[in-house]
């Protein structure tokens, strides 16, 4: 069994950062220059606010500037930033793929805090700034496979969930984690009366050993930038060997539990979506195939179908977590 994170100390120079990521950073920096110039020219209240980012955002910007590169980047073409931020499933903003980017323009992160409770030494609340302060950020280039059979390759920025878990001081009885997304129709318009499609809050869960796996990431950025609202600002989960809906966005509460928590999609359609939701080409969704995926970007002339891999290609890293389990039943 090879644990990839063990090679962190010794990456080959050529593997440190793919060129495309490098160039995207450059583009972003020049973009920042333009934004700065634009803001200087306009004197509106909105731009004044943007000119003086809150302490949280200043801290995050500083940290993003010293992000450690992915120690072991996968050798696959990155999905362009444009696609990553405009093709999203985030029902708090609407059910269409374009709804999140369209309906999140006025989303404000602050005020934001994360409640830690359940089987911990002492429940507490973390303000956003305090939450990210102790963690060094790392880039992780992960495959992202949606249960709807499309996929992306995304350079996320974040820190291991395991680091956050140890700060929470869970007790010995903590066997599961339960995550909760913010409920606020002011910030999430599709949570408003008459527009809701699913019960709120959105809830996801992981087994403790899954959550502590080195691949499990708390994400605060993407492509070297602050995580946009439509991608789950300010804090989201990323568990790359599971279907995308497990990677809950805009987290406000993490509870440590003794029992497996019921999750949103499980409650909505347990025949179609299980608690584990590990990417598995051998187990089809009842209404569509999971054997292959449409890797974005694609075009009208080439849907770019590729075979789906077990555990989304992370079998070597995570298969041991499920040894002896019947993954057809525990899908």
């Amino acid at each position: 069994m090879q644990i990839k994170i063990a090679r962190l100390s010794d990456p080959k120079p050529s593997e440190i950062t793919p060129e495309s990521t490098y160039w995207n950073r450059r583009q972003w920096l020049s973009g920042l220059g333009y934004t700065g110039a634009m803001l200087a020219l306009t004197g509106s209240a909105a731009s004044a606010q943007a000119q003086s980012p809150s302490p949280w955002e200043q801290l995050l910007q500083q940290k993003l500037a010293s992000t450690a590169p992915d120690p072991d980047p996968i050798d696959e073409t990155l999905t362009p930033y444009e696609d990553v931020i405009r093709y999203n499933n985030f029902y708090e903003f609407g059910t269409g793929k374009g709804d999140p980017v369209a309906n999140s323009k006025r989303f404000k992160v602050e005020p934001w805090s994360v409640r830690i409770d359940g089987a911990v030494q002492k429940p507490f609340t973390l303000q956003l700034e305090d939450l990210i302060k102790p963690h060094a950020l790392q880039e992780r280039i992960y495959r992202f496979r949606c249960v709807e059979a499309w996929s992306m390759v995304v350079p996320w920025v974040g820190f291991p969930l395991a680091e956050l878990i140890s700060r929470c001081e869970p007790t010995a009885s903590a066997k599961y984690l339960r995550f909760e997304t913010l409920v606020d129709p002011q910030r999430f318009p599709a949570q408003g009366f008459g527009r809701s499609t699913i019960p709120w809050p959105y809830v996801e869960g992981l087994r403790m050993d899954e959550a502590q796996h080195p691949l499990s990431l708390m994400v605060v950025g993407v492509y070297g930038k602050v995580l946009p609202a439509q991608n789950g600002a300010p804090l989201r989960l990323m568990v790359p060997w599971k279907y995308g809906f497990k990677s809950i966005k805009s987290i406000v509460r993490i509870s440590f539990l003794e029992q497996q928590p019921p999750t949103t999609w499980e409650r909505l359609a347990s025949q179609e979506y299980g608690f584990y939701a590990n990417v598995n080409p051998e187990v089809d969704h009842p209404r569509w195939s999971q054997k292959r995926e449409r890797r974005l970007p694609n075009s009208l002339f080439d849907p770019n179908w590729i075979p789906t891999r077990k555990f989304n290609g992370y079998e070597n890293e995570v298969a041991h977590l499920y040894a002896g389990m019947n993954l057809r039943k525990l899908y």
Partner: protein
Amino acid sequence: MPGRQNLLRAVVHSLAACPLASLLWEMSQNQLGSDPATYLVHQLGFWGLVLLWCSLAMTPLRILLRQPLWMGARRPLGLWSFFYITLHLTAFILAWCGLDFAIVSEEITERPYVILGLMSWLLMMPLAATSTHSIRRRMGARWVRLHRLVYLIAVLAFFHFALAAKLEYVKPIAFGIVLIFLFFIRIKARQGRFTSIKCAPLSLRRSKS
């Protein structure tokens, strides 16, 4: 009367062409989004369904508004619907499946909603083929019986649409409610409600022509 009939047809044709024109424009501007084939297939299917529902609404409109003029829009709406659904299927095979016959055959044999959709489209073919006035006149009462298939087509299309959605239930429910309402008016009309000379049950009027 013929003038108003022509005006109605012109309006129907121009409105029915709008979604396609908009899609072609988006295509030319590279504005179909991050997974263009999926978007195209969904849009074509959605508008085909809307137009099918519109064609089904013409008889109830005639009954409710006591205005036979609406019947002139039924045929163009049905044909436009068939046209959109044919494009929907073509885009599905060419762009979405990428003309990969392993994928096409798997989708057709294993996905219930794909089978329902395909059945619905196949049943539309004889209706489209017998849509001209001369064939209709020659077929007489058999034409009426054949074209009652549209009710089955609509029900199949509805379940195709509803089953394909992941959770988007607002649109399927809306289509379902409208369909039930349209069927309800026809049933009531057959039972003798809304009777007047203008609004005699459709089958009686047709068999005279």
